[in-house]
């Protein structure tokens, strides 16, 4: 959709604050009237953008998921798919993360997504030894940590591929559930990057 793409471009060039309706409409080659036909305001447009991004991410992560695989492999595949998507759509990712924290309407949606991810990560409790007994906040903390690192790399406009962070992130994810040995294994596991056809 042209207006959403224009929003991403303008926000990445001028910052979210300065991504005005007039600028976005001009970049998309539509009138402001058309913009307001489709969206209530700028925030509505940004929210639609995030909805779109979340849907794409869910689809990509879902496609990478193999229900027969072990918990570690499933988490790894999902994280890899997510990092690949973020690498491909860095500006969109940056905008989504910034706006997801700034908009109260999106915050609720963000919480739902995080809850879902927390539950998936916490399935590691069944994968590890019962005696390991990970801390109660393990999943929340691990997820927060992973998102924080991704956010930091995106915010710093670090051009390194996010996929490179897969092993350290996986190491952090599995550590509370499977222990230091499994975490070390994840850290040195070879990266097998799959490329999804764009579009």
């Amino acid at each position, binding site marked *: 959709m042209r207006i959403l793409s224009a929003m991403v471009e303008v926000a990445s060039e001028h910052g979210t604050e300065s991504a005005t309706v007039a600028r976005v409409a001009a970049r998309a080659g539509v009138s402001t009237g058309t913009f307001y036909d489709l969206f209530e305001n700028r925030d509505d447009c940004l929210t639609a953008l995030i909805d779109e991004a979340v849907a794409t991410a869910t689809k990509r992560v879902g496609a990478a998921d193999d229900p027969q695989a072990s918990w570690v492999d499933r988490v790894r595949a999902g994280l890899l798919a997510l990092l690949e998507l973020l690498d491909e759509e860095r500006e969109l990712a940056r905008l989504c993360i910034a706006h997801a924290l700034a908009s109260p309407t999106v915050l609720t949606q963000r919480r739902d997504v995080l809850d879902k991810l927390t539950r998936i990560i916490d399935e590691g409790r069944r994968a590890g030894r019962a005696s390991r007994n990970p801390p109660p*906040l393990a999943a929340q903390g691990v997820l927060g940590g*992973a998102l924080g690192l991704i956010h930091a790399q995106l915010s710093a406009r670090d051009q390194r591929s996010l996929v490179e962070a897969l092993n350290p992130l996986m190491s952090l994810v599995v550590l509370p559930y499977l222990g230091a040995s499994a*975490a070390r294994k994840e850290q040195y596991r070879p990266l097998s990057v799959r490329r999804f056809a764009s579009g």
Partner: protein
Amino acid sequence: MRGRDGAADSPRIELQRARKLVTAAEAVRQFPFAGFSAAVLNGDARVSRRAVEDHLQGREACLLAAFEQALALVSERASAAFQAQEGWVDRVRSGLLAVLEFFDEHPALARHCVVHSAQAGPAVLQRRGEVLDRLARVLDDERAPARGYPPPLTAQAVVSGALGVLHERLSQPDPGALVELTGPLMSFIVLPFLGAHAARGELRRPVDATSAVEHSVPFGLLQDPGKGLSHHRTVLVLMVLAAEPGLNNREVALRAGVKDGGGMSRILARMARLGLIKNTRDARSPVPANAWQLTASGEELQAAIGREAAATRVAFDLPEAFRGRLDHRAVLVLRVIGDQPWLTGREVALRAGAKDPAHISKLLKHLAGLGLVASARDAHRKGTPNAWRLTASGVQLDSAIGRETPPPPRSLALDLMWESGGRLSDDAVSVLRVSAAEPGLSNNEIALRVGITDENSMSQLLARLARRGLIENTRTGGRYNVWQLTAAGIELETAIRQETPAPGARRIAFDLLKKRGGRLNHRVVSALGVIGAEPGLSNDEIALRVGIKGRGTTSTLLARLARFGLIENNRTGGRENVWQLTASGIELEAAIRHENPGAGRSAR
């Protein structure tokens, strides 16, 4: 933070300023275009781009000022709590607890610091990022440079994770008491650095265990009925004797309202033992009667109690329920710790002459509860006992009690250890001794000599010692570290060597041997003795002297000793090995010989 005149403002003013700034920032955040007319907002009236940018900059500046002010307050609190503790875990826990307490007390500031700052513009986000980086560096102190684990991003991830948890809680309308998260968050924080055992320990640890607040002694005495160090009768006697020095037992009992004469005698005797009062009776008098008066220490304590009681409006006419006891054993323990800080509970018990260490442990816990002693633990070592020191209040009480004999000499080794960051484990001491005996060893070589089998544990230990400034890595190239003692390390190692009694050294040596070989083999002892007495022997010569018939057995034994770093082969040519003891071997052989002068020589 400073006021207009340059003087430091009081914490209350700082807090008020922060609250005002945050309120303003919240208004700016929620109504970003307040002040613009409806016509401008609807796009009906033109407004210059400059005007909009100025407005946005002003908004950002407001948010940043509020963030900085709130941050300064929380940093001050956390930093004080952090510095008040010893050891990484206790420091982090104390800092975290202080932050959570602050957030509980000031929810608006907490939301601004954690939640709203993440939604602000680039200036605030950048500052936020800097703060997170700083916190990560504090945590990363635990990630040693010589280690491959935990991974490099751990500290950042842990900080972000903890912040994520707080963000989640503070985003809710009713976040509840954040202090309750201390245990779970600490458990999450320490897990990657110290492992699951330490993480479980943090989860179980009581929340107020690391509170940096230390109570003043006299006020603690008055406020803590029936728990060992408080006794209203003691206070009454102090007051009576301060007012009328020279009274005898009966007179003191009368004025203090104590009917039991025997009880009064016991109280007076105990106070005299503690150096609070002295008996000035004249033995030459035809009818000798006790004449009690306060000592200098007693006067000091009485004055301190008077000051604090007045300040807190606690009357000396204490209720009947107030029936504490000034337990002489508690005072003895206090004195022991005052004379030599950083002793473990067992060592305190030994010096205090207590037969039951459990009783001392209970007593220490109680004294810690009163804020008289504090413990620190080298959290890097699992199962390490606490090391005890007096708090400021403990020092005050200790000096107030006075003493009859001069204090024993302090252990230089313990003081140096603590200066470098805490008590050293037996393994750490072994590393120092090995490094002193054989400078330039690599990680593996040291591990072999001190009997540490896990590579990571060895790296962690070496990195910790390096961080403490006791050893340094002098590697200039190649794959292997080259460790040697620093000046501080040499000083400490010398002190340890001089202060370690021979039986202690012997025990360490035997433990080392047990660790290395699994059991103390008499042939090992004999072989060490033989090589020590006659360096440069070959396999066959050693076999002959030790009495081993099989050449294979001799080779295996010597190879094992070489693997443990106790002997080395100095063959430079020819077919025969040339064995001699390494520095570790010499040390071990000497220790064994000290224990059993005949060991290793019987076979010769």
